[in-house]
């Protein structure tokens, strides 16, 4: 796919990234007591920032959200580094970003509909 500046495609990519991050957080909370488990996170924003050229266009096929283990949080005695409070904070932030993207997408479709219904 060629480079795009289409807002709908960007929002779609953002929503996909936040969905993946939500899954990572859910997995982290599920593994709260698992010995040796290191928390998962989704990597997307930085890759997107790098892929953007000076005109604000990017090839979104090349920028895929992916899971990684940050290994930066303090590890508990059982080798696990998940903190429930921190995960809940991430979840709240994630939900707010997701909601923002969906609302913006919705607004964009309303705009298109308004353009179609002009008589």
């Amino acid at each position, binding site marked *: 796919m060629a480079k795009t500046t289409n807002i709908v495609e960007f929002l779609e990519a953002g929503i996909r990234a936040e969905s993946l991050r939500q899954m990572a957080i859910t997995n982290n909370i599920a593994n709260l007591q698992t010995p040796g488990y290191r928390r998962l996170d989704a990597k997307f924003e930085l890759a997107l920032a790098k892929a953007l050229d000076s005109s604000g266009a990017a090839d979104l096929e090349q920028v895929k959200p992916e899971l990684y283990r940050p290994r930066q949080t303090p590890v508990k005695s059982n080798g696990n580094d998940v903190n429930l409070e921190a995960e809940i*904070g991430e979840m709240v932030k994630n939900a707010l970003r997701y*909601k923002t993207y969906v609302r913006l997408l919705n607004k964009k479709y309303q705009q298109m509909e308004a353009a179609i219904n002009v008589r």
Partner: protein
Amino acid sequence: MEVTNGFGPIDIAISGMRAQDKNLSIISSNVANAQSTDNGKGEPYRRLEAVFKAAGDGLGGVRLDEVVEDKGDLPKILRPGHPDADEQGYVTMPNVDLPVEMINLTLAARAYQANVAVLKRYQRMVETTLELLR
């Protein structure tokens, strides 16, 4: 945790929750060891105290800086049959005062709740802003 993005209040509230969570484990350790006459080194348990510090300069939230032992006097009670009793029959007890710990427990739980309240309110504020996009 350092605050780096636009969701500052969330990170700050979470740092408060985390600090109070650790504080709660310290208080429960004090309560659980209120009668521990031996801490493994032949001395009675000393109550622990959490020291909080503001993280970063200003808007960085809070962190539990260190856990220090209370150097206050250890009370002695007469219990001649106790294996840790001295020649006069007195046992040195931990300096844990249960009523004080109960007050600290209430304070810690309330502080945790206060941080959750801030988090919830901020979440609602952002959602109000998002209503503008409907």
